[in-house]
């Protein structure tokens, strides 16, 4: 009698435990499912939100009307692309922009990565201060940087406009290089480098075998941001361009400010196509994963 009672109690206890474990597992599974659905919803909504304007832009680029009418367009034509292809004004601007962005990217990535490396070796107190200083161009409106540089550089009259633009773009691209290299470096465990050092590698060897390969993502991301920033900057370039040397966004802004012309939509579509092409080339030559993500 007693035994069976005990057995029953044990059984009940066992049942409770099993039930609890089951309930916990179930709860975990529902929680995971809810999270998964939530994430899928976020990804879907965000994708639609981000891509919708791209689709609208493509429609705008093929709009046959010569004004901004209600969406969607009533008839289509390629007139804006014809105008884009025939515009010397935009072509020369595009070439300047491309050259400028390339020069800016190379300079800002090199200088920024070096600085980030030095910062990563500092004590937190110092690194905070220095990082803040280097990020400051990000918080300054382009208007101040452009205007300040214009006043400052006009003292040196002989400077070519391209050099002035380069100076302006360098200062706005540099924070990305510094910040993103730092992010890349932050993930690297200090112990790896120390291990390499203790195994007899010198600082330089440790840098090239451990730090650089691991920080590559950050540096590459900084370069991508630098290039994009330089290609897209309006405000700083607006102040520093002159009438013989000007960037694509400045040329487009003149078009948009003087009379809204859908050539800019065509230009955007063309730019996106060029970017896609670049990415494909980058992927074939380097592997996109290696350029942006990490796959060592």
């Amino acid at each position, binding site marked *: 009698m007693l035994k069976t009672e005990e057995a029953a109690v044990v059984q009940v206890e066992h049942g409770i435990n099993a039930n609890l474990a089951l309930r916990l597992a179930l709860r975990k599974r529902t929680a995971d499912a809810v*999270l998964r659905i939530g994430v899928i919803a976020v990804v879907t909504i965000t994708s639609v939100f981000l891509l919708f*304007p791209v689709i609208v832009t493509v429609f*705008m680029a093929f709009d046959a009307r010569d004004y901004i009418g209600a969406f969607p367009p009533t008839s289509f034509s390629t007139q804006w692309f014809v105008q884009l292809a025939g515009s010397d004004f935009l072509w020369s601007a595009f070439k300047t922009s491309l050259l400028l962005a390339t020069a800016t990217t190379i300079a800002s990535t*090199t*200088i920024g990565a070096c600085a980030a490396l030095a910062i990563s070796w500092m004590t937190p107190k110092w690194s905070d201060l220095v990082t803040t200083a280097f990020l400051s161009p990000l918080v300054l409106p382009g208007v*101040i940087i452009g205007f300040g540089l214009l006043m400052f550089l006009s003292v040196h009259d002989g400077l070519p406009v391209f050099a002035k633009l380069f100076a302006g773009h360098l200062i706005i691209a540099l924070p990305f290089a510094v910040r993103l290299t730092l992010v890349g470096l932050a993930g690297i465990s200090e112990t790896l480098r120390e291990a390499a050092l203790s195994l007899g590698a010198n600082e330089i060897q440790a840098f090239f075998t451990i730090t650089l390969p691991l920080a590559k993502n950050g540096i590459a*991301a900084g370069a991508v941001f630098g290039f994009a920033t330089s290609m*897209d900057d309006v405000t700083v370039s607006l102040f520093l361009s002159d009438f013989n040397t000007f960037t694509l*966004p400045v040329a487009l802004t003149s078009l948009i400010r003087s009379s809204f012309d859908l050539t800019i939509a065509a230009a955007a579509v063309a730019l996106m196509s060029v970017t896609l092409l670049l990415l494909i080339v980058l992927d074939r030559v380097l592997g996109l994963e290696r350029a942006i993500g990490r796959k060592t």
Partner: protein
Amino acid sequence: MSAARSKVLLLLPAVAVFALLLVAPILMVLDESFRAFEPGRIGSVQGASLTLANYAELLLPAYVQYFAQTYFLAFCASVVAVFIAFPISYCIARTESPSTRKASLSAIVGLMFLSALVRVYALELTFGSAGVLSPVMSFMNINPNGRQYINFVIVAGLLHYAIPMSILILFGAIQNLDPRLIEAAQSLGASALSSHITVTLPLCTRGIFSAFVVSMTLGVSAFIIPWILGRGRVLFISNLIYTRFSEVADYPSGAAISIVMMVLSLLMIFSMSRLATSFERT
């Protein structure tokens, strides 16, 4: 090569660039901000008298409101951007198929090359009061002409930059994580959500703060987005500065606003940076 010397050598080019191309010009702007302005002229006249009037003016409630509005909207956009970007970035970093990852990354980098001007006009055509979504708005009884709605559209415009940017910034941080940590936590019975909160998030603190600070600073200095999406009714600080510099040629006043904005923003990133460091240590 001593560590201290190499540190200095590595920092030198960046410091030189900053001193020459940022500090010196800003000092000129600072000087301009204390000059008296004579209406109808372009900028301050040579040898104009010194004054504090350009700063005193900013204490008027109307101007305090412009600052508050700019920082508030930029803050909202940054918080939302990080919240949305984190799971997306995580999915991209951890997806099984390399081609999905490649396609997503290409799309995001491609988005960053979408011209700012075109992007803003496209958003206007989508969310504007005569936009594609206007039937939806009237169905949901939203007044597309109200100030709240305009604020919402501006935040949407800011997000259109901030989300792809945050995704890319967080991507680097998440890639550097060891996926086995999460697996370990989950095999010990933690749910996906709690394991991410206790394991993934703390390890990505740097990245999250970075994404937030970059979004916030870009938001605060946004110019074209409020200029067009704000319909001229909601103004950001940059718009005020631009008007001073290029429409009315009152440089001294524009310079004063710029200086105040710069100081506020530097304080903000500095404190965020300190906060991130203290989070990391605990």
